[in-house]
């Protein structure tokens, strides 16, 4: 059997029935070492209204830049206890929050290193396909040369970079804006 990829459909309003059993908001649990960060923010629709029925999924490398997957050809071995997958719903105020370890650099095109980043899928009622975006870390020296960031128009890059809280640099804020002046950059994956 072969054929074309099955079409995507929306998760609808009731996805928590089927997806909630695998919620993971603490990706750092069980990991030893690495820089712990908490990332929090809101998802806002085209009218600036918070989206209370969205779900985020995270996929990321460990602190050494290694993905926890058997097919990963990198010669590094993954950090003990770090899986790199997260899933979290937004709450009634459209807010999400998760804690993780800042990933290391992973190879990109031409084996040039990529700046540390998280891969993010966004699901919600109203989205017929998932949205794909990336979250980058503030003031990382690798950001200016990152291949993917450089594909993004200069004026929109800031939507992909989290902002540290002045009182605690290990708490980062990052909002997802679906539309409007500061619409988040989304990718065709």
């Amino acid at each position, binding site marked *: 059997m072969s054929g074309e*990829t099955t079409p995507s*459909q929306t998760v609808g309003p*009731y996805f928590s029935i*089927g997806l909630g059993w*695998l919620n993971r908001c603490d990706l750092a649990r069980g990991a030893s070492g690495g820089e712990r960060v908490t990332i929090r923010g809101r998802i806002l629709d*085209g009218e600036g209204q918070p989206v209370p029925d969205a779900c985020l999924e995270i996929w990321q490398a460990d602190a050494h830049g290694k993905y926890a997957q058997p097919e990963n050809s990198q010669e590094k071995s993954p950090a003990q206890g770090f899986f790199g997958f997260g899933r979290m719903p937004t709450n009634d105020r459209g807010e999400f929050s998760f804690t993780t370890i800042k990933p290391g650099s992973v190879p*990109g095109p031409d084996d040039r290193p990529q700046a540390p980043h998280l891969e993010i899928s966004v699901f919600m009622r109203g989205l017929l396909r998932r*949205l794909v975006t990336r979250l980058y870390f503030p003031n990382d020296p690798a950001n200016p040369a990152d291949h993917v960031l450089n594909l993004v128009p200069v004026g929109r890059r800031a939507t992909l970079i989290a902002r540290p809280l002045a009182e605690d640099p290990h708490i980062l804020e990052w909002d997802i804006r679906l539309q409007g002046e500061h619409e988040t*950059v989304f*990718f065709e994956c």
Partner: protein
Amino acid sequence: MLRYRRPAPGTQPELLHPPYVSSIKRAPTQPLIQLPHTLSETTGPSFSKEVVPPKGFDLTRQHKGEPLGERIVVSGRLVDEDGRPVAHSLVEIWQANAAGRYLHKVDQHDAPLDPNFTGMGQTLTDEEGRYRFVTIRPGAYPWRNHYNAWRPRHIHFSVFGPAFATRLVTQMYFPGDPLLEFDPIYNSVPVESARKRLISIFDWATTTPEIALGFRFDIVLRGRNATPMER
């Protein structure tokens, strides 16, 4: 530099599909930026047997009694576009009960909840990419998208496949459902032949005498490019 082929034009829904009213304020308005496939997109989470509840495949045995409704077996294969089985991949499903009601605080449809039915299931595909669920046929239910709007009977499916790039959430429909013609979510897929692949097939082979009707729903994930790092 794409490890996974992009879907053919018209075989996936557009993000903005005005007949589906919720898409209007939620679909991005800026063009999507083409993401190269790096290790970040070609790897993805794989879930072990320990994570998945052993009886997650049987939605009729999660409570003391049996749920009301028509018992069905839903099974199929998870393959890629080249027909290669996608083995050991997590499949999650969720659905309404036989009366068309979800066990969810937001669902206010005036239809009864079933104390013996939660409507969630999960399993891993086997070596050949096969999966199998036992459940009940979900009911149709009204929604507020437009006047007299009813969703056709459907089961939500979530699959991962081998990579971040292959992640897919979809819905399975039932053959002969008269509501499909009027459903903006089903009809958001432009090409008819692609849309029809969301409809399961009644299947004698998995229909179990005296027990349950069988429906087959094969799920196809993106195929790999011939050259792993093609330019």
